[in-house]
């Protein structure tokens, strides 16, 4: 599609959703972007008005609208507090792909999504190559957090402090698993997600350790692909659909009670986004998506709600840990008590809440690369709240949030370590 009538027609199909916004402006109170800029086009109401303006030819600059649409973390804070229940993420995700279809995908993203991400074998190969040589162009930044920085990569990643790729990715350590249900009587399909597979392998190991401890059978098929959200957030619907299909193929034939992921973004993508966009796929694929989405659970929710765990009293000399609620856990899935329960399962830790635990960390997936300054500003506020809590550790159930928070803490020279709640629980076993 590259003609204007087609663009207008596609936007017209969003009309029933766009019209539900009554312009009350309540989203201004919760939007992390708007808090920084105070600009109406940065908040959901402004973006929805722009899309309507474009659809009704009151606005004639699709590129301008696309630029505004990209200034969004997809954190869902607006949708969670919207009085009239506007499906904001649904609208933005579809609108991004409509505008990309009209304006085209930038070459860099084309190479990343279409040339690499959708080809799991190639993606894995390139990442292991990078893991081998990353030591040559990076230097350690913070030992407690485990971050590095790189002068050589500065043009691409800026001043970021990042975690190195794992020497051995999880899929190399555990190419595939298929163990029966044990004492718990439950069997899960495990979807580690890209970041746990390639960077935070410790989270994957901790998850498997917890499953084993509770006698939970694990189906971990080879050939898992990215959940699709990075491609979709950039408006690349084709790559997204390819990735969903690859995953459907990988999990086909396995029998399991729940599909569990330790990544908030993967969970909300599989559970919410896959069904939302399944009308673009065949009836049999739609059926498979429905079956998987219904069974998909965040790992915190699975352990806390399905395994009947009971937290002990914290030890007298327990380490203080503060919780960050990932947007894709609390606002998208309503999961916030469970990660706290998981942390409480380890008596060596005691919870100490920070102010604004559920405000966005500023990562927003590739937003942190495309809008680095804004991402860092929002992240700095989160860092200040973490620091002011006085906690020694910050825990959060999303590897993307972990990466952003690690970066912000490390850049501020804070010695506060960043962990996933499942790692904290696994330490006690």
């Amino acid at each position, binding site marked *: 599609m590259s003609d204007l009538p087609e663009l207008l027609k596609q936007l017209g199909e969003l009309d029933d959703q766009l019209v*539900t916004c*009554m312009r009350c*402006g309540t989203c201004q109170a919760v939007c992390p972007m708007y808090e920084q800029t105070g600009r*109406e086009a940065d908040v959901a109401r402004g973006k929805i*008005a722009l899309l309507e303006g474009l659809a009704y030819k009151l606005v004639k600059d699709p590129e301008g609208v696309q630029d505004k649409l990209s200034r969004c973390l997809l954190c869902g804070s607006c949708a969670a507090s919207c009085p*009239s*229940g506007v499906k904001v993420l649904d609208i933005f995700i579809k609108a991004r792909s409509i505008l990309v279809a009209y304006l085209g995908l930038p070459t860099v993203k084309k190479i990343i999504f279409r040339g690499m991400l959708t080809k799991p074998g190639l993606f894995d190969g390139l990442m292991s190559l990078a893991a081998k040589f990353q030591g040559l162009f990076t230097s350690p930044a913070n030992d407690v957090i485990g971050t590095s920085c790189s002068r050589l990569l500065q043009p691409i990643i800026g001043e970021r402090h990042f975690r190195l790729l794992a020497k051995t990715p999880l899929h190399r350590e555990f190419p595939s698993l298929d163990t029966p249900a044990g004492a718990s009587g439950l069997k899960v399909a495990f979807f580690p997600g890209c970041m746990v597979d390639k960077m935070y392998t410790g989270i994957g190991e901790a998850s498997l350790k917890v499953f084993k401890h509770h006698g939970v059978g694990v189906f971990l098929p080879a050939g898992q692909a990215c959940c699709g959200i990075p491609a979709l957030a950039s408006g690349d619907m084709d790559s997204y659909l390819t990735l969903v299909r690859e995953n459907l193929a990988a999990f086909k034939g396995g029998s399991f009670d729940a599909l569990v992921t330790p990544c908030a973004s993967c969970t909300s993508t599989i559970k919410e986004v896959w069904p939302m966009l399944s009308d673009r796929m065949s009836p049999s694929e739609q059926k498979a998506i429905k079956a998987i989405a219904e069974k998909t659970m965040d790992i915190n929710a699975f352990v806390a709600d399905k395994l009947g765990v009971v937290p002990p009293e914290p030890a007298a000399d327990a380490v203080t840990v503060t919780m960050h609620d990932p947007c894709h856990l609390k606002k998208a899935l309503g999961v916030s008590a469970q990660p706290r329960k998981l942390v409480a399962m380890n008596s060596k830790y005691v919870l100490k809440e920070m102010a604004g635990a559920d405000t966005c960390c500023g990562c927003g997936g590739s937003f942190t690369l495309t809008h680095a300054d804004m991402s860092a500003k929002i992240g700095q506020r989160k860092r200040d709240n973490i620091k002011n809590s006085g906690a020694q550790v910050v825990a959060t159930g999303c590897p993307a949030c972990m990466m952003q928070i690690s970066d912000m803490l490390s850049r501020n020279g804070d010695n506060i370590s960043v962990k996933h709640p499942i790692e904290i629980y696994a330490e006690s076993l």
Partner: protein
Amino acid sequence: MNEALKKEFAALVGKDNVMESESDRFSYAYDAAVLEPVMPALVVRPETREALGRVVKLANDNGLPLCVRGSGTNLSGGTIPKQGGIVVLTNALNKILEINEADLYAIVEPGVITAKFAAEVAARGLFYPPDPGSQAVSTLGGNVAENAGGLRGLKYGVTKDYVMGVDFFDVDGEIVKSGSRTVKCVTGLNLHGLMVGSEGTLGVFEKITLKLVPPPLAQKAMMAIFDDVNKACEAVAAIIAAKIVPATLEFMDNFTIRTVEDFAHAGLPVEAQALLLIEVDGHPGQVADEAEKVEAICKKLGAKRVQVAKDAAERNKVWEARRAALSALARVAPTTVLEDATVPRSKIPAMMSAIVDISKKHKVTIGTFGHAGDGNLHPTFLTDRRNKEEWKRVEDAIDDIFDVALGLGGTLSGEHGIGIAKSKYMEKETNHATILFSRRLKKALDPKGILNPGKIIGE
């Protein structure tokens, strides 16, 4: 707008605070009223009060229409700009300049968010009562310009009752001072009184002095359930007649009750024809006494049941139901039009039955809830503005509602303002001389007609 003028604005507020792209300008073309958008020629966001004054002067020097905008939550189109004009944002002027605990006042910049201010005041053990529905995002400048109300209007009054002074820019960018930090002040014309509710047509606020009060020590909330709207209305009148002024006295009709229950599952009695949600506050002894009397009055006047909240959680549940009213109604249909025609308290039964008749006559869906205690009901139209034929019926029904309200000795707007949505009805409520007087006043203060032209009194 020519490039030279844009550069002049940029020199005043900084390049980053001037927005000229189509997509930026279009996002200031609307507010919360259901009206057609109008795109401004430029949007500026001054970061200092001095820069704000200079922006006003530059606009006047060039005869540019100027629309001041806080958070754009206006329900009558007061913040929809004029074609070719500029929008001036106040949301960067968001400092609380002083909270004086000894003399019970605060001085604020116009862009301070209402709820943030109220929270800051509460943290000092004081109370700022005006609580418009949009308080989480609305600005105090906007509240003063619209004379915003809220749930506590009955006992505590509305924004105008808390404005002790306003310093504002005239069209030449000069600061005009009015009011004082003192409880009593009769110095000069009551210009700050003129600014309250002026909807940006007479001056641009520089800073505002607001009255604070000590908070009530105790509250008690209850829900009275009626099988007849008239009985509920009689109960409202009887409570006031018994010399009790509740902090809040809210009403919900059967349609709203059922919609809220469908949405929030708050355990509301869906068969009830009307609900009164009542809260008394003050000294604990007085609260206990008044709560008992209110309960007895409601029962005497035919309430099927009165549920008195026993603790904070139950109190919260009562108000959750009220807070959910607009959200629940808004989800029923694509377009929600929230009206606020207001009648003297004693005329609420007549107003309610007229709303039911109008809804039948024009075949439109109306859910009604609102501030029964002060006669300020919110008949809420649930429609789809894309359906031209139905939209026409909604407009006709709104006309009828205004006619009835005025016939009952009421007013066009209790708290949402006149803006452009209701300016055509102004003469019906007042008279031609009033419009002329207002226009002459505006002409004298704003000879070029740059200050939010077209609002309240037309052009």
